[in-house]
């Protein structure tokens, strides 16, 4: 097991670069309040360096104080790497804004040589009090995100693991396992997931489906 590959987490998050539901662009006026919600997401080829930059950024007081959650997932495929910042459910246009936080985020983006297309990058995310609306479903297998699903588009998806096929039904923001050939059937018994942070795990197939 490579150290970089092992880290994965269930978490609240905005999507892989695309932040469809957030139409409002805004800037941050000064430093954030302690009770602000935020999500700072980076798709990068250098997660250790990116994490250290985000940590320094957080410890400088730019994101308020208190507990912050950190998650990290490898992503399969060629993905546009970039930095996305959402504050109090508003997508922040840190590229053009002149406030202190935006200037620092631009510097981090530059240090990480973003944006750029990255083969099999790592998605890291630092967040706090993030919103509970579900924007995406992520399917993770053996530690890698293998599929991103819009929960509002009804469809049926088939995934295959060591124990056979798992059929995922997605409809009107809900997702549940319709059928699974695994021995435990815990994934099927989990029922429907519809809130951010909900997840379904199929242990025999090593499939993990979470809502963000």
């Amino acid at each position, binding site marked *: *097991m490579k*150290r970089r590959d*092992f*880290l*994965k*987490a*269930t*978490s609240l998050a905005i999507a892989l670069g695309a932040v469809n539901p957030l139409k409002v662009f805004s800037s941050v006026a000064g430093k954030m309040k302690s009770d602000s919600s935020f999500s700072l997401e980076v798709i990068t080829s250098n997660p*250790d360096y990116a*994490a*250290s930059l*985000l*940590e320094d950024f*957080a*410890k*400088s*007081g730019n*994101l308020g*104080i*208190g*507990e*912050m*959650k*950190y*998650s*990290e997932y490898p992503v399969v495929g060629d993905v546009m790497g970039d930095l996305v910042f959402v504050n109090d459910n508003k997508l922040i246009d840190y590229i053009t804004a002149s406030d202190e936080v935006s200037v620092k985020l631009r510097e981090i983006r530059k240090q990480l040589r973003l944006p750029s297309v990255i083969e099999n990058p790592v998605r890291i995310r*630092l967040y706090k009090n993030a919103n509970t609306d579900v924007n995406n479903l992520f399917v993770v297998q053996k*530690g890698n995100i293998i599929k991103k699903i819009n929960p509002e588009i009804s469809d049926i998806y088939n995934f295959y693991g060591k*124990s056979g096929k798992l059929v995922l039904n997605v409809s009107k923001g809900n997702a549940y396992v319709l059928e699974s050939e695994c*021995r*435990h059937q*815990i994934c099927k*018994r*989990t*029922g429907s997931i519809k809130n951010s942070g909900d997840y379904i*795990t199929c*242990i*025999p197939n*090593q499939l*993990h489906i979470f809502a963000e």
Partner: protein
Amino acid sequence: MKYFDFIKKAVFIKLLFFLIPFSSILAQNDNGVLFELSVEKYLMGTEFQISAFHTSIDSCKKGLYYAFREVERIEQVTSNYRDSSEVSYVNRNAAFEPVKVSDELFELIKRSIYYSEKYQGLFDVTVGPLTDYWGFNSDHPIETEPDKKIIDSLLQFVNYKFIKLDSVNKTISFLKTGVNLDLGGIAKGYALDKASELLRSKGINNFLINGGGDIFVSGHKGDGSKWLVGIKNPRDEKKLLATIEASGICIATSGDYERFRIINGKRYHHIFNPHDGFPAPLTQSSSVIIDNCEEGVVLSKYFFIQGIEKVKSFKDKENIPYFIVDSNGKIYYGNNITEYNLKLFENK
């Protein structure tokens, strides 16, 4: 002591109780920022999850990485589903000649025998032939009514007294061919303890580690509060029957809902009685609170098999907080569990 002095002292003690753990968190909290990392991984036939708080993302990631690597290492020693494991090697050879094993495996099996004796043989690592028959740990669990004749024939190989240990040469031998070790009933608890030790050795003191429902909590959450651990409703896993608040302790649970098959309307699950070879019928779930996970996973199974009436007369019950749901869904718990701020929920 005057009443007023007593009150002052009581308040002071109470303040100390709350302030000490909270200040220990704050001391770690660089510039008021604390990071929470949560990682899960499929290991030992179940899902392991660790959530930890730390002031450094990198230090926390490294600590979690080494903790998971430790669990992987223990799986490689103890799994009887991996041909390359040390236990598999023992199973293939110990009936024919003494097999020299690592100190770690030798001591683990020695402790297993100790638990077998302590718990009247209701914990027994020689249940391998039975677990193979029921198949709940494999890709092919039983699909038809169990055959009592087959089970009775397998019971002749199930007895921890068939294991012979040589403490001088660190060898294991079986006194009978057909004996097959299955450390599944103890290895996960051992792995949880070792992973917890490792996290602490890396400076990570505030964490929760969950191995398939058996949990060890250390330190506190980021806000200084104790960890909140839920006890599932065994007939509706999305609902909780209760929560407890805990720190520096293991909460081990055995439930008939984890792995089971309903065959002709009857539930057959993976916690069986080594004496008769059949799933224990008296309990739906059994949780115990104890200082180490290794004995915790053994004891929760023992309580599960024994059923609440015998648990009530268990000699150490005053020292072991328990929470048991019997086969009818009725809840029982020891009074001492209320020390953990037990909260019960309506489940209708």
